[in-house]
């Protein structure tokens, strides 16, 4: 088995943010996964399938690139940006200034080609460090804000807008497909045609015409700057070829120069050229948007190039996979810089815009490369639907079994697409969705998505409702107060989001990204001005589960059992459940009242009722770009951080304690197994929040072992899909999780250990037996 999974990096696949999301410390997880648990799964699958589909050693080239990545040889080229825009540029409109500043960075940015590379290009200019003490590269710490953009706005402008010039609107999949189809020259030609039309168009006011012409000029500046950057790479490759130590490397460098020369302006003609232009476009998009830029439906926009190469015999499958692996290695060059999830997500498979199955050879190759490399990026999502080929479905299940931290994320077309339809996106484009860099839903290359701007923290809303509620109320009154307040909070959130939306449009347009999005060039409108087809603003619904739990507990304890009056409950909350009686009350609220995630109608119905109102109400708000608010059930680290300042709550939560993320049951309160949790979740997902939600499932290795384990896992996924689940991610429980459960048993009461005819909750086992299980887990119990 040795040698099948070489190239393990001393890095963590799971980033800090995800660790926070999971509520556990996952540091060291990646390396832990490389141990016997993975080896066992690999051995088992290999035994079942003959040679594993991920089989074979990595090529010497990929090994070499991995070695360079490990040693962070690319880091030596990094610099801290401090460029000044020439004074005469400051007379231009903001959108042109932004483009000129972008061009300045691309012009001044150091470039590099490393040993063994066949695909080249990377960002090398970053912001100044925010923290000292790390040695990522001299002067820049691992936790630094990695974005850098030259100042192009005056302090007065920034103050008026309430926003920094260059503030990014990221989390949006740029139109890589359009870039690859038209090439940079094609995009510039499209912009030029649009300029010509707008210049003579009679419908527009002079101001509007000027604005659009300025945008199109800005686009041209950006695209030309990218062409120039690529030409610098052409020149560097030629120069290095002349100095190359071997004729082989000289030939390779000449080939790189040739590829760069062609894609500097023309659309790519081969798979390799397409990958190369993709990489350059990605560099440009990172310069403009800094971070959290998803990669969209990677296997769809690149497939025509690979398909052509394969059909004419220009490339074979093996070489294609190696190229892909070279690209994936490149996508990890900034992993060491970011203290958060870098959001480089690719989405595979699913349906075409016409509703055909979209799975192709590249879908398989991407999954293979991800499994072979096991690098933090790109993170891989797969879209499944009723027509997903059985072979691909099986690959997905087998990948889950390998237990590589949440690889892949599974999206359910059968639920996501109806959600988008209900939001008003036409079927053709709804079928083209991808994720936004986290787990929210967006339409790559056709939409603009401001995902994280506004949110409603349901438990806080409930806390405020309780504080203001009169002492003498019925439960129905209380629920009505809650709903009224929820609507007010949504309105305020939308106002706040729209103010920021307008500020972004005023001083921080994104002309490069806009050039790739459908509609912007045609209309002459930046994406921040509503130029593209679908303009969503996300509204995050967090703490829904805790709010429903709290309401259910109030109903039972105060109104049904009449064990305590509402004022007395409020006093106990204010006192953070002090004293033995307070603790008894807390435990009663927590342990004796229904909790979401157990298929318990008493609380699930409340969650659905609140969720339905939230979804309807949020969608009713328009944003300034001609779009609407797009609700979903997500949370970021807020379920740990934002609630630190929230007092005790009637779900039995002490002041400051964390809450559940997304639609997950509150830690340790789901005790009926994963199927029951699916039922609860589906009460909310059937309401079709258009932005979706993510569902995390922890499975013990014994649950997925063997061919029957594969079949049962497949059945679990299929049932999830039938139950209208949106997105699903598995964690095959490993030693690190069990260690976390030992430390915080309260959060892991749901963790079942299963063997024949027996089941026990892990946290009920005594310490010595927990050790025993941990040791066995490593061996696949």
């Amino acid at each position, binding site marked *: 088995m040795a040698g099948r999974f070489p190239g393990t990096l001393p890095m963590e696949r799971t980033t800090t943010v995800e660790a926070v999301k999971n509520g556990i410390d996952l540091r060291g997880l990646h390396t832990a996964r490389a141990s016997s648990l993975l080896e066992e799964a690999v051995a088992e699958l290999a035994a079942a399938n003959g040679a594993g589909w991920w089989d074979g050693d990595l090529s010497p080239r990929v090994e070499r690139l991995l070695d360079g990545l490990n040693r962070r040889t690319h880091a030596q080229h990094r610099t801290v940006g401090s460029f000044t825009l020439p004074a005469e540029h400051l007379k231009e409109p903001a959108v042109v200034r932004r483009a000129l500043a972008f061009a300045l960075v691309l012009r001044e940015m150091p470039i590099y080609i490393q040993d063994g590379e066949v695909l080249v290009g990377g960002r090398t200019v970053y912001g100044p460090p925010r923290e000292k003490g790390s040695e990522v590269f001299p002067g820049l710490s691992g936790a630094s804000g990695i974005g850098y953009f030259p100042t192009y706005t005056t302090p007065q402008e920034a103050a008026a807008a309430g926003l920094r010039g260059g503030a990014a609107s990221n989390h949006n999949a740029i139109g890589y497909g359009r870039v690859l189809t038209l090439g940079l020259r094609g995009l510039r030609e499209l912009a030029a045609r649009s300029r010509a039309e707008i210049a003579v168009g009679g419908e527009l006011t002079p101001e509007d015409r000027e604005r659009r012409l300025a945008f199109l000029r800005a686009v041209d500046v950006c695209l030309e700057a990218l062409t120039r950057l690529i030409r610098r790479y052409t020149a560097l490759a030629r120069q290095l070829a002349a100095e190359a130590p071997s004729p082989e490397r000289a030939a390779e460098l000449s080939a790189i120069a040739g590829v760069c020369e062609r894609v500097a302006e023309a659309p790519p003609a081969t798979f390799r050229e397409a990958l190369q232009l993709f990489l350059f476009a990605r560099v440009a998009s990172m310069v403009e948007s800094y971070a959290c830029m998803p990669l969209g439906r990677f296997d769809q926009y690149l497939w025509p190039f690979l398909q052509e190469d394969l059909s004419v015999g220009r490339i074979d499958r093996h070489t294609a996979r190696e190229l892909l692996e070279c690209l994936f290695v490149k996508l990890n060059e900034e992993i060491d810089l970011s203290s958060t999830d870098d959001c480089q997500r690719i989405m595979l498979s699913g349906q075409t815009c016409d509703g055909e199955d979209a799975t192709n050879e590249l879908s398989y190759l991407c999954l293979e490369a991800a499994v072979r490399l096991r690098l933090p990026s790109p993170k891989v999502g797969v879209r499944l639907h009723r027509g997903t080929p059985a072979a691909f479905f099986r690959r997905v299940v087998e990948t889950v079994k390998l237990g590589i931290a949440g690889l892949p994320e599974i999206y359910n077309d059968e639920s996501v697409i109806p959600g988008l339809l209900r939001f008003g996106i036409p079927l053709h484009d709804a079928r083209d969705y991808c994720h936004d860099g986290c787990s929210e839903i967006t339409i790559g290359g056709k939409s603009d998505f401001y995902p994280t701007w506004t949110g409603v923290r349901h438990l806080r809303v409930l806390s405020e409702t309780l504080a203001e509620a009169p002492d003498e109320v019925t439960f129905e009154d209380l629920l009505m107060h809650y709903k009224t307040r929820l609507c007010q909070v949504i309105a305020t959130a939308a106002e706040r989001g729209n103010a920021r939306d307008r500020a972004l449009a005023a001083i921080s347009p994104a002309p490069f990204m806009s050039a790739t999005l459908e509609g912007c060039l045609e209309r002459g409108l930046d994406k921040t001005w509503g130029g593209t087809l679908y303009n969503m603003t996300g509204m995050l619904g967090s703490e829904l589960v805790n709010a429903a739990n709290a309401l259910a507990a109030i109903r039972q304890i105060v109104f049904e059992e009449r064990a305590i009056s509402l004022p007395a409950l409020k006093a106990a909350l204010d006192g953070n459940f002090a004293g*033995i009686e307070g603790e008894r009350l807390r435990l009663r609220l*927590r342990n004796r009242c229904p909790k979401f995630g157990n298929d318990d109608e008493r609380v699930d119905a409340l969650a659905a009722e609140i969720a339905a109102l939230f979804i309807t109400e949020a969608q009713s708000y328009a944003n300034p770009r001609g779009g609407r608010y797009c609700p979903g059930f997500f949370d970021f680290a807020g379920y740990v951080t934002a609630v630190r300042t929230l007092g005790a709550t009637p779900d039995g939560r002490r002041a400051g304690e964390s809450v559940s993320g997304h639609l997950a049951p509150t830690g340790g309160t789901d005790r009926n197994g994963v199927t029951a949790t699916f039922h609860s979740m589906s009460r909310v997902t059937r309401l079709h929040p258009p932005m979706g939600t993510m569902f995390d499932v922890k499975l013990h290795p014994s649950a997925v072992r063997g061919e029957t384990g594969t079949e049962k896992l497949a059945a679990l996924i299929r049932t999830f899909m039938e139950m209208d689940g949106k997105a699903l991610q598995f964690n095959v429980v490993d030693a690190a999780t069990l260690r976390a459960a030992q430390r915080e048993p309260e959060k892991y009461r749901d963790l079942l250990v299963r063997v024949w005819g027996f089941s026990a909750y892990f946290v*009920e086992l005594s310490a010595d037996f927990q050790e025993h299980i941990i040791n066995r887990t490593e061996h696949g119990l």
Partner: protein
Amino acid sequence: MERREDAGMLRGLAFNVQRYSIHDGPGIRTTVFLKGCPLRCLWCHNPEAISGRIEFGFFPDRCIGCHECIQACPHGVHVVDAQGQRVVYRERCRSEARCVEVCYAEALERIGYELTVDEAVAQVERDRPFYEASGGGVTISGGEPLRQAAFTAAFLARCRARGLHAAIETCGYAPWPALATAAAHADLVLFDLKQMDSASHQALTGVPNALILDNLARLYASPGRGALWIRYPFISTMNDQPENYHAMGRFLRALTGPQPPVRLRVDLLPYHQLGQSKYRKLGRPYALEHLQPPARATIEAAADALAGYGLDPHIGG
């Protein structure tokens, strides 16, 4: 019509209804565990299933010291002695579970609750989509479900009538009519076979094995019965000896004949120590403190031997 309703109202004593059960028959299942068992297997990993009464488990770590249980129990089960030590007199317990009711900290856990056949069926119905996607269904287990034979038969019959795949797991130690009736309503019988030598069987489980073997033979020969899987808990030093599994092989081959239409499945279930902590919460001693799980090679040798008798051995459930 009236009789059907009566059967639905039959009450059973269960200790767990476990959803997403994946080792008790094919597919994703829900397993209803009933309380009460006629056997006393030394290695029992569900000790909370042995008694046919409602009991309580105690987790001292979770106790917040509110002493409400002391107030709640009129029989003096929970006591703080003169030295301030928390003492539990289980023998005084009358299964009223009043202590559990007031223990919000869940330091005291109720073991055993009554439910009707209809309630049990309604619970297992919840996961029908999972059974349909996985070829799963429901399993009734224990304890020994045939200790509550009428409940078990009615439950199996109702599940099957609703198109759910219905399985029973039994130790086989029950009057033949009880087994025959339940098996007639089951799509699958999981039948435990532990030790072929009757004296050893008595020493290990508290009862001789003649009734069990006789029941198995009659069940195998029953016309129109459902599928049958033998479950062989493979316990180091207790029943892992070659003479035992060869005897088992000979016995089963005698049932099946040399050319059975379907090879009889035998699940070898390796001993594990996980039940031990359950004894602690029940305040009971565990007899096999130092017994180790069997070595892989030992259990594989047994599987190979059983295969030699024309059987279909599977390691693990």
